[in-house]
């Protein structure tokens, strides 16, 4: 008789292993509570004799902007730089390790390491520790072997040499724009303008990107840092 008393509930039960998002973004769910995120837009484009790297400057914890003028373009060696996105702590730790290994390598080999080596080191760290890291990195720089080159190292730890690379949460909004504007064989000025324009557009649409645009132009004879304040962006907020 007991089975007659059982009634089918009207509410739809979620499956035991349903994907619970609780209204939060993928990034917020993967970060620890209170952890800083460089939800970001980063970009790097090689041109004839060097590379342009660019990034926004917003660091957020949830909706609070912890730092609106941070520097997401970090130097790994004399002519090798990287753009950081994802967890700020993770990318800072990675950058410190790679910087250390590269400096030791430079002493052992007696010459400047190549961008490929730097990217490879970064990738090894990202891949071997993929379970504990949330870091998307773009490594770019100048070396005597390949001249300007850019390597994209997204979340899982793949490492791909690319003609140009974009990354971070804001990059999703500008794939179309960059695809349409990018041309092979660009000069320094053109590449810089493209970086600035693209990042501005991403900052306009991505809540996790904003602040100022920081660029670094890396060439054989030196590095040039530039920054565009938020009120001088090519494309408005």
């Amino acid at each position: 008789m007991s089975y007659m008393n059982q009634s089918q509930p009207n509410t739809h039960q979620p499956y035991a292993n349903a994907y619970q998002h609780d209204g939060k973004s993928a990034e917020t769910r993967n970060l620890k509570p209170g952890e800083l995120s460089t939800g970001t837009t980063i970009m790097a484009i090689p041109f004839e004799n060097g590379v342009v790297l660019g990034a926004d400057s917003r660091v957020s914890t949830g909706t609070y902007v912890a730092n609106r003028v941070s520097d997401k373009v970090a130097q790994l060696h004399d002519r090798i730089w990287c753009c950081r996105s994802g967890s700020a702590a993770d990318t800072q730790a990675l950058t410190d390790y790679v910087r250390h290994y590269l400096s030791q390598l430079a002493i052992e080999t007696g010459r400047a390491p190549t961008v490929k080596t730097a990217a490879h080191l970064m990738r090894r760290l990202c891949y071997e520790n993929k379970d504990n890291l949330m870091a998307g990195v773009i490594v770019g720089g100048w070396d005597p072997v390949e001249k300007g080159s850019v390597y994209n190292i997204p979340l899982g730890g793949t490492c791909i040499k690319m003609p140009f690379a974009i990354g971070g949460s804001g990059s999703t909004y500008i794939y179309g724009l960059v695809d349409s504007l990018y041309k092979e064989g660009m000069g320094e000025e053109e590449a810089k303008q493209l970086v600035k324009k693209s990042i501005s557009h991403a900052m306009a649409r991505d809540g996790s990107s904003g602040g100022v645009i920081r660029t670094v132009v890396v060439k054989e004879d030196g590095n040039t840092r530039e920054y565009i304040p938020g009120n001088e962006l090519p494309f408005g907020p």
Partner: protein
Amino acid sequence: MASSGSGYDLSASTFSPDGRIFQVEYASKAVNNAGTALGLKCRNGVVLCVEKPLLNKMLLPNSNRRIHTVDTHSGIAITGFVSDGRQIVNRAREECSNYEETYGTKVPPTVLGDRLAAYVHYFTLHGSLRPFGATALLASYDTETKEHCLQMIEPSGVSYKYFGCAAGKGRQPAKTELEKLDINKPDRGENIDVREGVKQLARIIHLLHEEGKDKPFELEMSWLCEESGWEHKGVPRDLIKEAVEWAKKDIAEAEESESEEDDDDDDDEEMNE
């Protein structure tokens, strides 16, 4: 031989009163008893060559190699205790593999040479270990600077870069012959090329070999040059055959004629008698 060890030569971790470590010197003597190995850095590549005395008529030809590839861009020729040499080659292979896994590029020649030297040197520091009784000639190519390199790692753990080097039984006369070759000219473009190098090494080996006294031998040669795509490979057999034929002819001609440049050869013949 010079002074006996008289008690200071029992362990590699003991200095003698005159500042020598006899065990390391004895290790070098072990190398000097073995077949000659030669290395030549030519204008456009490196050639390695080892004289393999055939100790047993039953040995399979072209087996029991003395020259080993440790990576696509590097090769090692061994002389001395072959088993000791095997260890050095295995270590070199590990180093190459490790370096590429960590840094993503082929190990630069200097780094590989230094690491092997450090490894060999380690065995000269401990009382419980003996030094390697083998010398390694390392031919290597730097994929980033596009330069080729020849190094020799001795049982004491030193490693130098050379234009031409020799180890083993015939190293003294071999060095004399090597010095006569155009391998160290101020204008690098005037140095001999690899094919010429192959012929010259074959000639030197045959020159040093005495028919009656020494055992019959096999000649193992390898090169690392433009023609091999900058990969360490065995010199093609027909080239070796050609080189040996030329070498024998050249030596025979030198013996017959009385011209000035052949006086050296004649002197060698006389001294050896």
